[in-house]
Every structure is written in C-alpha cells, then in structure tokens.
C-alpha cells in the first residue's frame, strides 16, 4: 500500500468487521477484516505455516491468536469458538484480548514504517434511553491510535453514512447503519447532526435469536443469512421464516426508536422531505429496503421522508463517510 498518497484514512470499527477506506488517484479503496480471533496452541511449525500462507496472527505467551477473516476456518478445524473483541458496538470489557486484537487487526491493515496516517474512526451513538457507555470505548481507541503516533478523530457512525451518501441533498437527511451489534441513526441538517442515537439490536441479535429457536449454531445462521437470505420470496425452510421474524424485530425497533427520538426532540424546521439512507451488513439482504420502507409507511412518522434508499456500497459506507470527513477537515 502506497501511503504517500493514502495518508488520510477512514476507519469503520464495527462489531462484526473493521473496514479501512482510503483514496488513491481520486478513487475510494477499501480493505476489510472480520473483527474476530481464535486462540491456537503455540508451536514453531504453526507459526511458520501461518506466516507462509499470509494469515494475520499475533503471539500471546503460549498461544497464537489467528485474527480476522481466517479465524472462523481455524475455529472450525479446532472445534473452537471464534472470539469477538467487540460487543454491541463497543470494545467488549469482558474480553481481555479485545484491545490487543483490535490493534493488531488495524495495524495489519495499515502497514507500519510509512508516514503516520491521519484518520477519522467511527464511534457509535449512545443508546436511546440508555446510559452513555461509550467513554471507555472511544477513549481506548484514541489512546491506541495515539500510541501508534496516528492523528485521529471520532465521527458518529450515522453521520458518516450521511457524509457518504447524501451529497445530493447537501448532507441533509437521515443515515442509518444496520451493524452487527447496533443500529446507528443520525439526522443531519446541512452536514450538522441534529440528533443521533443507537438501538442495541443488529445482526448478532438476529443470529442469536434465530439460533435459539432452531437449535442451530449462531455461526451457521450467520452464514445462511449472509449467503442466501432474502425477503418477499418463496422461502424453503423454517430458518428463513425465523430470520424474517427477527429481521422484522430489528426493523420495528429502529423505526420505533426514530419515531420516539424525532418526536421528543426539537428538530430543525425541514422545509422539504428528507431522504433516508440504509447501510451496513444487516441491511444487505435483497428486499430489505422494501420491507423497511413499507414498515416505515405504516407508522405515523414525525419526519417527512422523500425516499428510502440503500447506500451505494452498504458494507463500506461508514468507512467512506469517515474518510470524507477526514478529507474535508484534516
């Protein structure tokens, strides 16, 4: 990676994936890694093998930690569970390896030895009606980037969606990121966040809930969900029906949250209907946008929405928005 032209970065630190956005010759580029790891007993042969095939790993005492996209494969081989350094959008305080794993994953995506990057990283909004539990998460990431010598700033995840997708309305509208741990919402007016909040449900909630009903492993549910789940079609098995139920639960929770928040908050006077953009991995199944829009239309929504649209590249939207923020401010 030629950092001479890519020193400004956008980083989406998500519960499920970490996505790095950069710009080269005017084009946006992305790298992505699963935010997961698995511990493997240390041996020199294993270490050499991992190095030879280019698998990201780090050594911790008597163990090797396989990081990122390859972690599930190793977990399968070893009959172990993959571990997740983050939960519900923030660093998992119960996982002692959380910070070193996230740091290792990010360092593996941004080569050392080049010019120190400047970056905007995504941070979730506080949960609606909940206690703000983000200080530890954001402060820890800031400290981590500081130790690496990187200049960093945080950007609200929903606002990043607005920056990425709503240039046609002068960055006025509603950005929603359906993530693995949380759904983040921001309503922005002329690029300014008027309100932002999160809903503590996302892809992990769907997986775990469906697994509890079907008796399958959550990992298998996740794979099915990502590979061939869709709405409004001819579903072939119970799993698809169960997934639909929990997807609807997430959709209803987000819409109810928006309705509640927008009703209780004194918002800017919007003279025109505003667009709503959906992004994130949990919003990717075909038919999701349609399902969401129909649910939205069936409620007495306090903001007039001109259209509900999918982000151009839902898996990279937050990272792109963070990069745009970085490019315009740093």
């Amino acid at each position, binding site marked *: 990676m030629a950092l001479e032209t890519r020193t400004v970065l956008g980083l989406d630190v998500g519960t499920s994936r970490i996505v790095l956005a950069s710009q080269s010759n005017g084009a946006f580029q992305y790298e992505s890694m699963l935010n997961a790891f698995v511990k493997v007993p240390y041996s020199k042969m294993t270490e050499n093998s991992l190095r030879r095939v280019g698998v990201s790993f780090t050594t911790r005492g008597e163990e090797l930690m396989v990081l990122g996209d390859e972690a599930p494969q190793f977990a399968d081989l070893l009959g172990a569970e993959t571990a997740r350094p983050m939960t519900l959008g923030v660093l998992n305080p119960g996982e002692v390896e959380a910070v070193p794993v996230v740091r290792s994953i990010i360092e593996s995506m941004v080569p050392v030895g080049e010019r120190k990057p400047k970056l905007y990283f995504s941070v979730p909004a506080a949960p609606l009606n909940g206690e703000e539990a*983000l200080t530890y998460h954001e402060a820890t990431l800031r400290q981590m980037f500081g130790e690496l010598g990187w200049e960093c700033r945080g950007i*609200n995840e929903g606002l990043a969606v607005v920056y990425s997708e709503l240039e046609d309305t*002068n960055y006025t509208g509603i950005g929603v990121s359906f993530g693995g741990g949380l759904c983040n919402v921001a309503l922005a007016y002329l*690029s*300014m966040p008027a309100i932002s909040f999160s809903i503590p449900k996302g892809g992990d909630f769907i997986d775990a809930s469906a697994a509890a009903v079907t008796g399958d492993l959550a990992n298998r549910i996740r794979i099915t969900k990502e590979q061939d789940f*869709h709405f409004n079609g*001819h579903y072939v098995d119970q799993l698809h029906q169960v997934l639909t139920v929990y997807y609807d639960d997430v959709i209803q929770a987000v819409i109810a949250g928006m309705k509640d928040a927008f009703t209780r908050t004194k918002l800017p006077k919007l003279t025109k209907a505003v667009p709503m953009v959906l992004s994130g991995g949990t919003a990717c199944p075909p038919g999701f946008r349609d399902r969401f829009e129909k649910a939205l*239309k069936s409620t007495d929504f306090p903001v007039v929405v001109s259209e509900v649209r999918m982000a151009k590249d839902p898996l990279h939207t937050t990272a792109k928005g963070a990069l745009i923020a970085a490019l315009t401010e740093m």
Partner: protein
Amino acid sequence: MADPMERLRYLRAASVPTVIRPVRVIQRRWKIAAATGVMAIVAIPYYQSSMVVEASKPAVTVQRSLQDQWPDIWMVDQSETAESYSNGLRIEIEGAVHGPRRSYVWLDQATGKVHTGGTVPVGIVYHTTESHIAPFDRAHNGDLKALGRGILSYVRDDRSYHYLIDRFGRVHRVVAEQDAAGHAGYSAWADSRRAYAGLNHSFLGIAFELATEPGAESSSVATPAQIRAARELTEMLRSRYQILAVNCVTHAQVSISKITDRVGDHADWAGNFPFAEMGLPDNYGLPIAGIYQFGFGWDHNYRTTTGARVWPGLALSGVEQQTRARAQGLSVAAYRKNAQQVFKEMMEIQ
C-alpha cells in the same frame, strides 16, 4: 459549489466544532449551519416538459398482444361517498385526495422518439402495503378495522396509490384517477407500441392491504374478498381506459434501482400475484422492459426472489436485449448504455 467535497468542507467549516462527538441530541448547531451554509446549496437543473429526446429506434419489438377485448363495465350509481359499477364493484370515494396532474412521457417504439403530454392511464401496477396485519378472523374484527383505517389514512397523506383494497375487500380511492400517485417512482414498462419511464403518471397503482408471508401463495395472503374486489376493479379500469392486459403488472416487474442500475428494486408481488384470478394472462412470463428496453441489468437475487414464474420472462429479456443491440450494430454494453441514457432523460423530462 459543484464539488461535493468542497461543499461539505464549506458547510462544516461554517459551523462544525473540530471534534464531532457521539452525542444524542445537538439542537443548536443546525441553526448556525442553516444561517451560514444555505448559500452553498446548489440548485438542481430540470428539463422543460416540452423537450423531446431522440432515442434509438428498436429493431425488433417484443410481441405483445394488442388485440385485447375489454369488458363493458359502466357506472351504475354515484353518491358523495361511493360509486357502484355494473360488475358489482363498489368504490369508497370519501376522503380521496388529489395529486399532481397526470402528464407523462413515452417512447414511440416505431419512431424511437420520446413524446410528452400523455394524460390517459395506460396500465396498472399492483402493490402490497406490507403494513401491520391482524389475523383475519372474527375475534380480530376491531384490529382489522383499525389497521385498515390507519393504512388508508397514511397512504392518502402520502398519495401513495390510486386505490387501496382493505382486508375486507373494500375498495378505497386514494388519489383521483386523473392525477399521478407516488406508487412506482423509478420504474419502466413497455408494450409493442410504446415504452414508459417513471410509471407514477402513466400507470394506475392498486395496493392490497397485506404483508407478504415468505413462501405463501397469493391465495393464502390475500383474502378472497380482496381478490374478488381486485378483479372487479381491474375490469372497470381496463374498460374505462382500454388498458392492455400486458400492461397490468406487479411492482416487482417494473421497479429499477437508482443505485445499482438493476431491475427489482421493490419486491411487491415478486412471484405470487394471482393474475389468473384478475382475469389476466400470467404476465410473469413477459420480458422485463427495464432490461430489454432500457438496458438495465438483473442479478441472482432478483431471480431468487421472484421465483420460477418470472424466469422465462427474464430469459426473454436477455435475448431481446442482445437482438436489439445486434440490430443496431452495437455491443450489448453500448446498447445498454444508450438505452439507460434514454431512460434517464425520460425520467428527467417527467
């Protein structure tokens, strides 16, 4: 300010603190932004409605029957609250609203030219509301009525469709027939004479109050009363406007994604609309105009979501697209690019 990045830089510099924190409510900054940033708003150009766009003349046309026979349906009675028709149809008209006056563009398949000023509806798009649905039984009568009232009120405020058929099979006029309703947006359809882009103005929208159940057949999601009412309404509208049977299609068949340039942005009645019960041929077998006429693509997800009834039409669409490209001496990619440009210009004129 044409460059969006420059615009964002300007807006943020006008009012943004150096660090944006993940706070829940920020109520004052938008006012500053409004005061200082409004000058950066760029006016969106628009096309005059009289503009005519030259389009490529299609070399061949998909064979679609124009030899339709329309039933003779007439209005029997009319009051301030309802209309009744000779086929048993009754339309509740109290509370119907107006939308923008109908005026649409179309592409003449014979000359390849785009014309403006169409005022007579030429087709029907069937939708589902995907709203909250109560079990259809006696014990839930109160819920059924309340939900029906709620969705009717919403779609009238939103001017979403021309007609809504509630769970009891009552037909409600939502938007006046002579006006446009916002039911189809970015969409396309065609018959052998004309092609249409943006069907809000050219097609009537009929919505069934129902939520699609995965894997369910239409007979189990729509109530018998809804299906009967939809058939009567379809007959009346086809009779009144001489609507071709091939122009009675579902939202899933006509919608196009602005983002991906593929068909199937919406999935209403994706694969289980009861065409036969409407007195219509199985129009799922028709090629998709968004693909062959306007050059848009489709993907595996669309194929999966729609199901086997739509696949013959999809296959035909690809063949027709290639045939048209060959006839014009173009590569498929070049044909698609040109056709999409025509669609976009028609949408802008609209």
